[in-house]
């Protein structure tokens, strides 16, 4: 293993350390700077707690829906390609490249009070904007391709031989699906789910536009942090940030585990 020049190593470590490490450290340093008593109180702040619960509720619905959509569409795109699927493939990638503010805007245009379907839905009793459903839709939008992007290349690579073999051994389509197909994409899906979760609980711009940021009602944890800083409640904002930073670290570990399992499967196949 050739070693890279020492100066390069030092330069990179300094760059990444200052750029990424320092802010992360700062969040936790600020959070613990006033002692545990104050911290505990902040963690029990009514507004922040309501925000955390809302974020959790959004994730609870948005993530499973996205997984269903993601796995289903991936299977469709890879196993039954057609002109529709090529278009589908491209369409799914769009959300990732769009500013979250624009995401919020377009959802509002379509489902807002004066939007295309807004009044139709309102007459059915569904309020999309400034409410929970809107936040869920926005969250799904911004994380739409995250599962597919992991599963599609894997499905392509794995190929159909295992499934065909199972068929020759007498297995029916559902058995093949559950015992072979799903098994082969487990860790890729897990990776995608983790990315989706991170994106959903971390979304800010889109939810800001769509929810109206009504404290205690439509304010997610990210919105709560932003609001605190806007109102110069910096410490409270940092506490919320630390909660999210901690969950990010946990999520990263989950990602790393999923990635390693994927690599092991790779080595086994190769």
């Amino acid at each position, binding site marked *: 293993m050739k070693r890279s020049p020492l100066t390069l190593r030092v330069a990179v470590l300094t760059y990444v350390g200052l750029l990424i490490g320092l802010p992360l450290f*700062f969040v936790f340093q600020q959070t613990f700077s006033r002692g545990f008593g104050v911290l505990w109180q902040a963690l029990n702040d009514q507004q922040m707690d309501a925000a955390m619960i809302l974020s959790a509720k959004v994730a609870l619905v948005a993530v499973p829906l996205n997984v269903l959509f993601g796995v289903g569409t991936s299977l469709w795109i890879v196993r039954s390609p057609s002109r529709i699927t090529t278009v589908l493939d491209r*369409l799914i990638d769009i959300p990732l490249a769009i500013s979250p503010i624009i995401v919020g805007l*377009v959802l509002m*245009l379509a489902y807002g009070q004066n939007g295309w379907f807004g009044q139709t839905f309102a007459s059915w009793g569904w309020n999309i904007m400034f409410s929970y459903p809107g936040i869920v839709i926005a969250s799904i939008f911004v994380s739409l391709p995250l599962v597919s992007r992991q599963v599609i290349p894997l499905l392509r690579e794995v190929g159909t031989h295992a499934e065909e073999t199972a068929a020759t051994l007498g297995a029916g389509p559902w058995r093949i699906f559950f015992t072979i197909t799903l098994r082969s994409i487990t860790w890729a899906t897990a990776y995608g789910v983790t990315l989706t979760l991170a994106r959903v609980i*971390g979304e800010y711009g889109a939810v800001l536009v769509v929810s109206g940021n009504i404290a205690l009602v439509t304010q997610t944890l990210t919105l709560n942090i932003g609001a605190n800083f806007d109102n110069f409640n910096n410490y409270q904002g940092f506490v919320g940030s630390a909660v999210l930073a901690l969950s990010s670290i946990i999520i990263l570990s989950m990602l790393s585990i999923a990635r390693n399992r994927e690599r092991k499967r790779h080595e086994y196949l190769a």
Partner: protein
Amino acid sequence: MSPVKGVARGAAVTFLSLVVLIPFAALITNAFNGGVSGFWSAVTAKESLHAIGLTFFCATLGSALNSAAGLATAWVLVRDRFWGQGLLNALIDLPFALPTVVAGVTLYALYGPLSPIHLSLTGTWIGITLAIMFVTLPFTVRAVQPVLETMTFTAQAAAATLGASPIRIFKTITLPALAPSLLAGTGLAFARAIGEYGSVVFISNNLPYKTELASSYIFSLTSSSQNTAASAVSLALLVVAMALLGLFSVLSYHFSRGNR
């Protein structure tokens, strides 16, 4: 096709339509609510041009810097062995997983008026670019890393036997081989930077005509119910961003000549 598949596919398409297609159709319609002239005047309004211009400037600068930094980081992660390498690898992923607002407020606190290191970068393009660099580093690193990992480096050894110096080898052999993935990663970084909101809005201070980014400008239009103008500027931003991404794609394809 089994009925189950048919229903499932129908559901998927409906889902996609509700979430993506219909909203986009609404965007395009709304953008031209005032006709083509309305669209044009909204896009070319002074504040709009300024915001878009600043956005592109910072996005380009940030992605370009991270292009080089990403290559260097990937190199050190793949071609070296040292204590702390695992931590470095994990840190790279942090901006992917961390909510933008957390990055935004932290960077504001670290480099803003309350900065413990007495550095005030709020309301400057430097602060904005810094935030963009925070958010986009993973894109370039992770784009180049897998290519470096599978590179056998025999071509580099061959070039050495032919008399080439290490710098020449890097310029003529290594860099061209990495160009496609590096360009792709930089393109992704750029796309992300153009639309970034949560991580840049705090440190930018949103001063119109000075440090207001396109996303903030659109947000202010939306908040004041100027939906037509907001749609127009959004559409313009999307079109220009797509065009630039297309350019990146073409460049990337051009450089992958040897892989086809």
